[in-house]
């Protein structure tokens, strides 16, 4: 049944080849540098774990932990907002309303993200409009300091930056679920709640996966939000790597990058183990002969 058109396979491999040549090759270089030794201002080939030791023993390891935590929390918040929105769009609102809402979700992204993120410092500051409102209405006697330069502000920044990106894949996969399956579930006597958890959610796993990846990876790699909105010295991995590069410490910067990629691959491996790929790839993988 499977017909091979000459060149078809090569065409399908094009994106993979693109990533292999222009990302994996440079990345291999990075992994190599993480094992090299510093020599003056540059590096010389070696097989040394010194950079990793320095990373694990210093203050930078705490940054990795903090990044994981910040990314996980921001993703959870983002998902809890994006999923209901995508669900409402896919199931309950008209096509025109859906188009409008999705469009409205993209518009803030046209504004430079530095300016967008920075705007929060004005909104949430001690003398900003939010605090004026809080004090003016008597909700608090004095401005709330924790609104800005705090974990709270970082989450505001991360969620507003990445949650809208999560809506799209969720909407796409929710709107692709065949209504027949949901109706069948009702016919078989399952209530709406049970149908939602047993039918809709499992079928939307591809979208959830994409949304979680967008949210988690985006937050994890974020380097502007922490330095604009975070408290004294708040930094995530991106900031720590930049800082090491400031003194030309290429091995430790490379070691940190390698560690980040390794952690991400570990998560992906866990996903592979925990979920049957078919639940994620849906009908795609049914195409096997």
């Amino acid at each position: 049944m499977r017909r091979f058109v000459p060149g078809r396979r090569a065409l399908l491999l094009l994106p993979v080849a693109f990533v292999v040549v222009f990302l994996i090759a440079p990345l291999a270089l990075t992994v190599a540098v993480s094992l090299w030794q510093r020599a003056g201002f540059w590096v010389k080939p070696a097989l040394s774990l010194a950079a990793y030791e320095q990373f694990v023993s210093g203050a930078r390891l705490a940054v990795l932990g903090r990044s994981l935590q910040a990314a996980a929390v921001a993703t959870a918040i983002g998902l809890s907002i994006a999923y209901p929105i995508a669900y409402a769009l896919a199931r309950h609102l008209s096509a025109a309303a859906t188009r409008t809402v999705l469009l409205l979700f993209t518009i803030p992204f046209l504004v430079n993200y530095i300016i967008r993120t920075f705007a929060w410092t004005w909104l949430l500051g001690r003398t900003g409009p939010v605090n004026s409102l809080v004090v003016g209405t008597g909700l608090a006697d004095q401005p709330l300091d924790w609104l800005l330069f705090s974990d709270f502000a970082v989450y505001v920044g991360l969620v507003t930056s990445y949650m809208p990106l999560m809506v799209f894949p969720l909407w796409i996969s929710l709107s692709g679920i065949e209504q027949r399956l949901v109706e069948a579930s009702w016919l078989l006597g399952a209530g709406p709640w049970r149908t939602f958890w047993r039918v809709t959610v499992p079928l939307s796993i591809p979208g959830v996966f994409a949304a979680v990846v967008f949210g988690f990876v985006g937050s994890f790699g974020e380097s502007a939000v922490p330095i604009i909105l975070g408290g004294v010295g708040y930094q995530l991995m991106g900031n720590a790597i930049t800082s090491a590069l400031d003194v030309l410490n290429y091995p430790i910067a490379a070691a940190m990058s390698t560690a980040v990629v390794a952690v991400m691959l570990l998560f992906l491996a866990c996903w592979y183990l925990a979920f049957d790929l078919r639940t994620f790839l849906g009908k795609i993988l049914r195409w096997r002969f």
Partner: protein
Amino acid sequence: MTRTGSSRRDFLKYTAATGLAAGGALSGRLPAALAAAGGTVTLADIGVGDPDGDWSRFTNATGWKVNLVAIGNAPSTVLNVLVAGGGARVYDIANIVGGMQKPLVENDLIEPIDTSRMPNWAKNSYIQQFLAQGKPGFEFIGYEGKVYGVPTVLQGDSFAYLPDVTGPLDSYAALFDPKWKGYVALEDNFTTTGQKTALYMKQAGLASIKDPADMTPAEIKTVVDFLIEKKRAGQFRVIWSSFEQAVNLLVNKEVYVLDAWEPMVFAAQRKGVDAAYANPKEGFLLWAMAAYIPKNPQRPKERLDVTYRLLDFMLGGWYGAKIALLRGYMTNPQAPAYAKAHPQEFTADEAKKVADIDANVKRKFEKGGTWQNRWPTHVETYESEWARFKAAR
């Protein structure tokens, strides 16, 4: 199935457009401005040296255009752009905060400057006074006896405050005074903030530090321990990392005492805030911007000649006055006189402003202080200890 048909046409159109657009981009023909070869000098700049895009005087004199590429000033950006990013082949000049000669020369990234090719060099009394070989300021433009940078801007830093709230302040001690607990912000910069803190600790007798500009690892640790103790006590509201952020901290009265650059105070004053820049008894932190020539053996001789003419232009009166006016930094000794002598180019008000900035910064240099050190001997310890300060909770 009209819908299918139309979407197929869309798709084909889309595919064709992709091919065309990608082809156009890859053949490098699309944007005219990108044809940088011949007649354009490329200047990488941190934003301070941009005369609002007006290079007409240089272009009229030489026939060459100037393409300004905005780059960051963090050592990582500068070094990465030059070491890794192929910047050495693209940029003819890199105009950044000086003092970076050691890593740049050691990595073979910049060329020595032939000062005799710039007539304005000899006319620049600030260079002779503050930056010549043998003066401490030489560290900002020279390395191992050779000149590598053309000083385009000179400045002395201290800190800013809101006198209405704090009254007059004249010591870096204010940054650490519990009276302003929670209303202080520092710069996220291990050399400047580290040096200012060390200066204060030394003068206040809190630690024995031999040279605040070039500390030993043990001394750095002492300074960072002190900063962490203050951080845990809630002394600092934030550590800022950008000009915009610092200005807003003052304008929104988010903090009262701010480790800052003087133009931030000017910007806050323009927004109607009564901010002041301190004249601390410990002295100013002096620094200079340096325009380096990235080493590029393939650069044609003609372009190198024009590069020198541009550097000379940047030491000249018009450019100096313009940059002083726009950015609030002192530039070169010709600037105030030029602005005053050319009323059709600078209003009397503007000329006065240039003269004021010049006089103000000259006063700082005459009072003295210490020179900032962008690349201290133990720079790596500075960085890793600073990482410890930032991560501390």
